[in-house]
């Protein structure tokens, strides 16, 4: 019997090649598309799953909150790890800290070359005990046990030492601190939120950072992980944190600090704190991927069902004959199910090929490649097999029942087609399929618009034609004044300043004392002179910072500094001035910006700063966060080395190439031993929206896939409906209908289905997109044109498909049309 099923399936597939191809390819694309999404989901959910203690590892995080202002930090003060372990030994087995001076990169030299390395961390010697990062070379037990030791990645080993054995080689950190390579990490593709190329022993820092800083409970630069003896202790430990904070944190902030634990395996998808060690994913997108994958499978299944049904009329005679010679319903259902599963098996082969071809081009939400999964992962292969066969079976049930239930008495004489009624359920399926396709189109339009909105939004400062050069974490910062002076001698360079963080990307918090708060931590951008000018930030009250070392003439073009300001002000702004934004004015309770001018804003007990200016609000971080009060503080010469990490250079937009060459030349002249790292601010800020960028790309790709699959099903269905009405067409032609009238007659039912789909999809899409957009503080408006475009695309495609079928039949002569049945 099974042989008979196989035989007839194969012959049917070959006989109706186009239908078979459409049916199989539709399912194959559906399975392949959903598999690609499941690969992404698997990748996103597999972060840090490979550590043996993964369920017992937690990160300690800190929230500083003063009436809505403060920070949510992924890192905590230096002494937190050791003190926790000392106070709660029953619960905590071990701990590890990672530290990188909160610098975007740190300078490493070997022989005559110096590089800026962004994945450099100091870590406690327990690093390799807590995390499972195997060494390709070196002894894990001792690799970090001594000061001045470092473990490097295989990539770095190759970059620095070529084919030489890296073990025992000496590299220099920050031009003066020697580090001996004691190990090389094995390269693995296992995803982790910890991305590093260098892990140096934490004990090295004892010779570089003064002990009082290492023992203070204020600065919080250490990513701190603890291993609990049992994961159930997490809540008990967290319950002790308020007492712990009160006991150790400094008086001025302990009432505002909250510590909490974050499960290691939650970090990648559920954490979105300040100072994350690397860009994270977002659980929201994992859910969206799930829904998309399922919707695509639904479309593919419906497609499969509709095509099988559409083909049913071709099989009607066979069904009837089989019934008459004794096949019962169950047997026929079995036969058609076997056929479905066999077809899906063929589709699976195609799906595997598509996924294999696509996988080298896959990247996750942060843009990292995730290739080679399918070959290496038996679970994925099992998933694809199971899904394919399950979909084949599921999609086969309805057509099988439908086919098996043909009433032979109505058909076994005369026209076979006339006996087949078109089931309403199939119309419902078509509507569902188009609703999904329209929803995916709407989602694509909305996500692309939202992305463009965020990328092109007015941030309150100029981000175009601003070059950023990294100088933090190296001796380059000491050369800032030289670099600036040299750069400004060239006409392609319009203005130069320096900042603590990349403006619009990130910020720090610093402690200030104001008229309303004894001491509080405020979002701060520490800057050098000419900051407002470089970024074209508008002042609404007061003035810009004045550099007393400059001549009055150099402020001729700065409308925010009046001559009398320059001549009558004898103090140094570095020590005595801050500028705040409009939101800070409101936060501090002043009625107008002018009221804030001259008010105290002291950095620490001895600070003497006053508010000298108020700028219009601008976005100091991505548009994922709302506007907030912040401070612009001028770095003083003493702390400049610690606070200034970037040079920002406004260049002439018509001479950008010349400006880059100028920068390279100046750098070579002033800082010849150090590699130049620069980027355009706009590019950096666009990366803030990498998740949205990836989602809009994915949404677009999968909308196209969904529409493609849906159209395949629709193609078959249209063919069926048109074929069924061939005789009617002949009669209409005979009594004088024109070709267009025939096309209209044939298309109206299908077009109606498309319009029903649009009516259903529009409100549903509005609600879903409204929910998605509401997670953004700054978002686009959902305008009717989005739905109009989506609907129009579907209408256009369906009209094209219907036209393809109907014109063919409408152009037949009446005699041909009637004879063909």
């Amino acid at each position: 019997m099974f042989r008979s099923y196989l035989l007839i399936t194969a012959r049917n597939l070959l006989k109706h090649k186009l239908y078979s191809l459409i049916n199989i390819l539709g399912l194959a694309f559906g399975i392949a598309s959903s598999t690609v999404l499941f690969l992404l989901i698997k990748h996103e959910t597999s972060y840090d799953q490979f550590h043996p203690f993964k369920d017992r590892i937690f990160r300690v995080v800190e929230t500083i909150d003063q009436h809505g202002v403060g920070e949510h930090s992924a890192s905590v003060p230096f002494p937190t790890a050791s003190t926790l372990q000392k106070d709660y030994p029953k619960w905590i087995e071990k701990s590890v800290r990672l530290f990188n001076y909160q610098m975007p990169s740190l300078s490493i030299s070997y022989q005559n070359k110096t590089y800026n390395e962004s994945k450099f961390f100091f870590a406690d010697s327990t690093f390799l005990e807590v995390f499972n990062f195997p060494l390709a070379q070196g002894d894990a037990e001792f690799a970090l046990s001594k000061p001045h030791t470092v473990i490097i990645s295989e990539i770095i080993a190759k970059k620095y030492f070529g084919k030489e054995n890296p073990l025992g080689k000496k590299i220099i950190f920050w031009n003066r601190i020697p580090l001996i390579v004691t190990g090389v990490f094995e390269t693995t593709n296992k995803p982790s939120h910890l991305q590093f190329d260098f892990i140096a022993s934490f004990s090295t820092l004892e010779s570089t950072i003064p002990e009082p800083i290492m023992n203070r409970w204020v600065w919080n630069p250490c990513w701190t992980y603890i291993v609990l003896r049992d994961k159930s202790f997490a809540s008990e430990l967290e319950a002790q944190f308020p007492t712990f904070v009160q006991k150790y944190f400094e008086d001025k902030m302990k009432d505002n600090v909250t510590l909490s634990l974050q499960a290691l395996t939650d970090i990648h998808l559920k954490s979105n704190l300040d100072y994350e060690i690397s860009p994270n994913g977002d659980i929201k997108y994992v859910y969206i991927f799930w829904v998309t994958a399922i919707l695509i499978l639904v479309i593919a299944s419906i497609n499969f069902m509709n095509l099988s049904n559409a083909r049913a009329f071709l099989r009607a005679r066979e069904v009837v004959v089989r019934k008459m010679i004794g096949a019962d319903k169950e047997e026929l259902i079995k036969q058609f199910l076997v056929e479905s599963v066999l077809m899906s098996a063929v589709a699976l082969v195609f799906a595997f090929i598509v996924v294999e071809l696509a996988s080298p081009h896959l990247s996750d939400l942060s843009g990292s490649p995730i290739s080679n999964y399918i070959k290496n992962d038996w679970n994925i292969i099992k998933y694809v097999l199971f899904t394919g066969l399950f979909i084949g079976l599921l999609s086969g049930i309805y057509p099988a029942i439908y086919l098996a239930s043909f009433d032979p008495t109505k058909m076994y004489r005369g026209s076979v087609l006339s006996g087949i009624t078109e089931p309403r359920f199939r119309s419902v399926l078509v509507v569902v399929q188009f609703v999904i396709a329209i929803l995916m189109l709407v989602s694509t339009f909305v996500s692309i618009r939202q992305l463009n909105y965020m990328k092109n939004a007015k941030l309150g400062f100029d981000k175009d034609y601003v070059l950023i050069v990294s100088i933090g974490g190296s001796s380059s910062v000491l050369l800032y004044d030289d670099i600036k002076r040299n750069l400004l001698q060239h006409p392609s360079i319009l203005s130069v300043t320096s900042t603590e963080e990349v403006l619009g990307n990130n910020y720090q918090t610093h402690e200030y004392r104001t008229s309303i708060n004894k001491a509080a931590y405020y979002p701060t951008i520490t800057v050098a002179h000419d900051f407002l000018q470089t970024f074209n930030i508008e002042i609404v009250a007061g003035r810009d910072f004045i550099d007393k070392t400059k001549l009055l003439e150099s402020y001729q073009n700065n409308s925010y500094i009046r001559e009398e300001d320059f001549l009558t002000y004898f103090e140094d702004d570095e020590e005595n001035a801050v500028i705040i934004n409009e939101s800070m004015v409101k936060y501090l309770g002043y009625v107008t910006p002018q009221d804030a001018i001259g008010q105290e804003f002291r950095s620490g007990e001895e600070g003497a700063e006053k508010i000298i200016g108020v700028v219009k609000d601008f976005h100091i971080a991505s548009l994922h966060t709302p506007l907030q009060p912040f401070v612009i503080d001028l770095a003083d010469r003493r702390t400049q080395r610690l606070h200034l990490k970037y040079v920002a250079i406004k260049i002439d937009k018509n001479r950008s190439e010349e400006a880059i060459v100028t920068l390279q030349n100046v750098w070579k002249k002033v800082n010849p031993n150090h590699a130049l790292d620069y980027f355009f601010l706009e590019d950096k800020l666009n990366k803030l929206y990498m998740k949205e960028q990836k989602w809009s790309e994915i949404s677009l790709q999968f909308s196209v896939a969904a529409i493609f699959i849906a159209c395949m099903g629709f193609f078959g269905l249209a063919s069926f409906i048109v074929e069924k009405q061939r005789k009617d067409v002949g009669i209409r032609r005979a009594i004088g209908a024109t070709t267009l009238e025939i096309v209209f007659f044939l298309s109206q039912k299908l077009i109606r289905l498309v319009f029903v789909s649009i009516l259903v999809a529009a409100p549903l899409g509005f609600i879903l997109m409204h929910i998605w957009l509401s997670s953004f503080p700054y978002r686009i408006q959902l305008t009717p044109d989005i739905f109009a475009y989506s609907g129009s695309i579907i209408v256009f495609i369906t009209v094209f498909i219907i036209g393809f079928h109907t014109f063919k039949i409408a152009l037949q002569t009446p005699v041909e049309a009637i004879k063909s049945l």
Partner: protein
Amino acid sequence: MKIIKTVNVEKIYTSFDVDTVALNKVNLEIEQGEFVSIMGPSGCGKSTLLNLISLMDLPTRGEVFFMEQSTSKMSDRKRAEFRRKYIGFVFQNFNLIEELSVYENIELPLVYLRMPPSERAQRVRAVMERLDVAHKQRFFPMQLSGGHQQRVAVARAIVASPLVLFADEPTGNLDSKHGQEVMEILSELNEAGTTVVMVTHSTANAEFANRIIQLFDGHIVTGKVNQYSF
């Protein structure tokens, strides 16, 4: 044995709230071994009657007995089993499955009867020899002439040795020579003991039967014994 018996059988089709009486209180008995022709003008209910007595359809009212068993309450599966075991069909338009070869078409009823392959092969070969289609066994229906297609259809209908062979206009699509051949085959089968019930428009074909039932507007108007058939 009365292989088929109908008691006051009625069949009413309802379409757009309009009832059409296809059969009206039809009483009919067919003995085992008979060759019965059902005749009548188009729309008189011939095919409807054939559907009911071949267990393809259920009457609106009345009762159909097959092998003296009431069929009105039989499950779909049971009726399929009866068709499998006791009934063979020959159609006007042959209704061979185009995707199956001559051999596979003939074999199909035996497959549904779950007959072992060796026995199937034996039976199929025998019936192919009998109907002179063995040399075409690897052909597909589209490659055969109408006459050969009908021979294959008859072979398929009789391969399971049914008690009753239903034929619905079996020569309708054949030329007179091939039509004559098919009628002779049916006649031979009947002589060998198979009950044959045939719907036909052709008086000449009807003459092969030993009883002719005339239908008109859903009624049996005559059920005379064919005097020429003996």
